[in-house]
């Protein structure tokens, strides 16, 4: 433990799990993705705000679980020394603050505009006319529009 040659001579981490662990992680990731997709399909039919929020929350939790498995096992961060892990993860906690602060700000901006800005309020009530042309059989017209845009 005293001499540095152990570090220099063996910079490769030993891989305890081997390919078995890799495939296990793969199946976990695949399973989580399938559950995410199933929840996404279920959400298409859900109308209530609460139900949609619950499903979205579940999807976000699954997303974070996927991120954990990729970082911990594929990127092998779990096998690194704690100090190293901390220098990477602690700065990233800034993003937690940013998510909360900015989403809150966005929500508040929306409320303020709806309360005080008559233009925004009215504009957001305009029904779409030429949009979603697919359903209204105006596909040809829209295509030409896209071409002139180029």
């Amino acid at each position: 433990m005293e001499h540095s040659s152990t570090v220099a001579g063996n910079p490769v981490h030993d891989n305890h799990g081997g390919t078995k662990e890799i495939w296990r992680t793969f199946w976990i990731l695949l399973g989580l993705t399938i559950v995410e997709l199933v929840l996404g399909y279920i959400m298409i039919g859900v109308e209530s705000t609460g139900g949609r929020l619950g499903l979205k929350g579940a999807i976000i939790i699954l997303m974070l679980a996927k991120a954990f498995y990729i970082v911990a096992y594929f990127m092998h961060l779990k096998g690194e020394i704690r100090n190293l892990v901390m220098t990477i993860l602690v700065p990233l906690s800034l993003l937690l603050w940013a998510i909360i602060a900015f989403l809150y700000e966005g929500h508040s901006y929306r409320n303020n505009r709806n309360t005080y800005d008559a233009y925004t309020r009215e504009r957001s009530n305009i029904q779409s006319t030429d949009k979603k042309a697919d359903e209204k059989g105006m596909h040809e017209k829209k295509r030409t529009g896209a071409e002139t845009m180029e």
Partner: protein
Amino acid sequence: METTTAGLDTKWWNGGKSPFNVEYGKLMMWYFLMSDSFTFGAFLIAYGTVRFSSNGWPDPNAVFKSYPGASETTNAPLVFVSIMTFILIVSSVTMVLAVHAGHERNKKKVATNLIWTIIGGLAFLGCQAWEWNHLHHEGAWWGSNPFANSDGTESTDNFTNFFFTITGFHGFHVLSGVVINIVMLVMTLLGTFEKKGHYLMIEKAGLYWHFVDLVWVFVFTCFYLL
């Protein structure tokens, strides 16, 4: 005796050993990835902020509902994007297998797995190119959004602007990853790592490639599912 006065933690940093026990390049790759996740984080948080400040937003299931060869009226949400996600996960697995083979210094296995990873990356890019092309034909581009909000009201261009910017930035990362992997493959086949005595370079390329997969987990969730 000096060592008795110094605690265990101090000894760790006393010199003579590598406190992080990784080589320089790998440590710097981690820090690069950390900075890159701030970039992607900022993009996605900006997207979330704008979405939270909007009264309406297009329904992703009404936008991303086609796949190659489907007819104009096809309504198949999430199908194509789940294929893209699957491709990226599999290519991540082959990459980690390449890194693993590198630890065993098995040149042939490294090369095979790298080739699979490159194929996966190219397949993903192909899917994305098709999707962009398809959306563009529907009239979607930067500054042009043909999709109405989910409640039927008129939408702004924010949806397409964020979609093309963020998936474009991610796609650019995939492209760089494929180029890096091709360089790694060439170096492997030329025996560069064999001469060096280790395949640590593959490990760094692998970190980058997994990061691309990691970002896709977030992009995919934020744009297609939520």
